[in-house]
């Protein structure tokens, strides 16, 4: 066994598709002992899918597995579950904390791997009746913390810890596993303060010295350059660059991340855009904060011009989704929002809707639809409730009776206009495909005949054909009815193809607003500019 020559990890020709939708193509990646590799790429570039495959996540198997092969120390690995991966020495620190809030750091570090002492009862019943050996656990936890090189209080309860220490507890947990050879860190610095992040980088260097290989996923390019041996850049499911960190710089990496074969259709209607830039401001947002878990908005000020399509882009978790959700009152928000000169009170969806706003949520199944009701109900409901449409009045308006016929008519109209594939207007929304559900959501918003439409991730999780139709419908709605549209999307190219101007959100703040015709590289740089 010559360990020097066999790499620790070899990934050969990894391919993966989700129901025919190719998300990874021919990924080849090797990693030596003690090597630190930085993995970068836009959201949806395939980073997390790749890591899920490596970690044996259940999702991968449930969706038909993957093609290609993974070798650990030269031996072919086939992980049936994350536990297999852990057994072969792979550790992963996820973005979301996987910690028991009421346990101490020690208890969390050694969760389900506690030191135990035998006793009579455990001999009879099972090992689960062994008592815990607290002193030894304490010692093992301290060892792991020392390995990490960052001091955390081993006896502190997780819920009392600052966020950074929670992150370190997770890392210490991985380090406490003796078999650990490869550690995957998925955006570990996102929740850390600057000082803590620096400490983490120091600890990564320490781990590498001990021979542990690290895959480091982050949007902070500076960190990659300072700690990694090599940088791997992913884009659209392909590994497009894999170079030593010393030979590159931030600008170049950014270019690799976003620079794709630029679509010709981008920046459509440039002249119109110019014209609109000088138009009247219809909506003005001032110092908005929104508490949306995972999409916190911190201090956003933004003007929307009448008649335009404004795009809001940015990386996941940076707060772009929080903006429409906060304004529409679905999450707690603060600041001032002025529409046509009138201030709109926040945290009250009704007031927004009364001011002729409409919102198509990114969470179709959770917020956008009544899954167990008919299409008629889904499309007509908000218009009925807010504008008293589709109602028959009896007894001088005392009784507002649902006008089934009018509802059916309007539903049929939108089914036709948006080409919604369904068995009829009575079909349950649950039974439709993702793309058609999205169209129903649009129809619901169109039926409100709004003057300002927020659309959030309109193409998430739908197939290519439906995507084009949805975007087309939006454009048409904007051009023909003169409705101002604010569209939030994580797909930059989609924004560039649809919008007049694009605002990039980074770190919960607006980084800059640029015309859609600006080259992708510039947007890419903005996206990572204030990442937290």
């Amino acid at each position, binding site marked *: 066994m010559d360990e020097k020559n066999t790499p620790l990890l070899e990934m050969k020709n990894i391919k993966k598709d989700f129901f025919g939708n190719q998300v990874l193509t021919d990924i080849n990646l090797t990693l030596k002992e003690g090597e630190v590799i930085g993995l970068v790429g836009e959201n949806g570039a395939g980073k997390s899918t790749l890591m899920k495959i490596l970690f044996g996540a259940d999702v991968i198997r449930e969706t038909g597995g993957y093609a290609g092969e993974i070798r650990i120390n030269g031996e072919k690995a086939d992980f049936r579950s994350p536990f297999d991966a852990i057994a072969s020495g792979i550790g992963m620190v996820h973005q979301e904390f996987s910690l028991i809030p009421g346990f101490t750091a020690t208890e969390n570090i050694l969760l389900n791997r506690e030191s135990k002492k035998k006793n009579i009862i455990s*001999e*009879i019943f099972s090992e689960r009746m062994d008592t815990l050996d607290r002193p030894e656990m304490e010692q093992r936890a301290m060892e792991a913390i020392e390995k990490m090189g960052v001091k955390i209080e081993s006896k502190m309860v997780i819920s009392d810890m600052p966020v950074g220490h929670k992150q370190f507890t997770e890392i210490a947990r991985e380090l406490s596993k003796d078999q650990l050879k490869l550690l995957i860190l998925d955006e570990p610095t996102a929740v850390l303060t600057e000082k803590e992040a620096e400490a983490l980088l120091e600890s990564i260097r320490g781990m590498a010295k001990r021979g542990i290989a690290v895959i480091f996923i982050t949007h902070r390019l500076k960190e990659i350059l300072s700690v990694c041996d090599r940088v791997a850049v992913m884009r659209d499911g392909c590994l497009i660059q894999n170079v030593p960190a010393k030979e590159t710089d931030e600008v170049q990496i950014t270019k690799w991340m976003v620079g794709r074969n630029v679509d010709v259709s981008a920046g459509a209607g440039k002249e119109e855009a110019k014209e609109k830039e000088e138009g009247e401001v219809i909506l003005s947002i001032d110092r908005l904060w929104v508490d949306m878990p995972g999409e916190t908005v911190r201090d956003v000020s933004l003007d929307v011009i009448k008649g335009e399509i404004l795009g809001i882009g940015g990386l996941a978790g940076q707060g772009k989704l929080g903006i429409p959700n906060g304004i529409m009152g679905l999450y707690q928000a603060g600041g001032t929002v002025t529409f046509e000169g009138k201030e709109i009170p926040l945290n009250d969806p009704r007031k927004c809707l009364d001011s002729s706003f409409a919102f198509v949520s990114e969470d179709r199944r959770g917020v956008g639809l009544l899954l167990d009701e008919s299409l008629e109900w889904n499309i007509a409901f908000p218009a009925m409730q807010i504008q008293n449409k589709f109602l028959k009045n009896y007894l001088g308006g005392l009784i507002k009776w649902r006008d089934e016929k009018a509802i059916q008519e309007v539903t049929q109209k939108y089914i036709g206009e948006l080409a919604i594939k369904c068995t009829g207007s009575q079909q349950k929304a649950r039974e439709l495909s993702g793309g058609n559900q999205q169209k129903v959501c649009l129809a619901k918003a169109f039926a409100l005949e709004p003057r300002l439409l927020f659309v959030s991730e309109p193409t998430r999780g739908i197939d290519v054909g439906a995507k084009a139709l949805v975007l087309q419908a939006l454009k048409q709605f904007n051009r023909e009815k003169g409705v101002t549209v604010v569209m939030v999307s994580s797909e930059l190219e989609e924004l560039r193809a649809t919008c007049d101007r694009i605002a990039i959100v980074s770190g919960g703040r607006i980084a800059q607003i640029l015309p859609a015709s600006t080259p992708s590289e510039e947007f890419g740089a903005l996206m990572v500019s204030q990442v937290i």
Partner: protein
Amino acid sequence: MKSRQWIFRLGALAVILAVAALMFVVGRGHTVYFDSKAETAGGKEVAVPYKIEVVVDGEKAAKLYEGERGMASTMGQNFKMRLDITQEKGQTKKTVNVGMKLPYSMDGIVLNLPAMLAGLPQEEYLSEFIPVPSAEELKDEEVVTDEFGDLTGGSEDAGMEGDGSE
């Protein structure tokens, strides 16, 4: 490792079953009735003492004059009692300690004390007591199966009454 655990488990189960079996033997309760009645057995009449005091477990269980019956509840098959016998009125007591094995299968056992004292064989003085259900027991009883039980009377009160008698 696993098989060792199974052996331990089976052992534990065996111990528990053994305890249960032991309880069957040790805990079997009997009600012993004492008769102080004349008995004619084998053509011989047995003399009945004036008074017999029966002491079981250090507690006085019964004081029997001729023709009377007393009872005591016991546990287990080894039955011991002390009899304080006064043959004639005014005479001093004579104490006899009796130990015997009770038959397992009988709930109620009648002991004819004079016959026993006269030294007759066991089958002569020991017989099974078969209770005749009292009229109250035979009365049809309506079963109360409220889903909610007796909410206010409360089973707790029954306990209170019980304690009062102490």
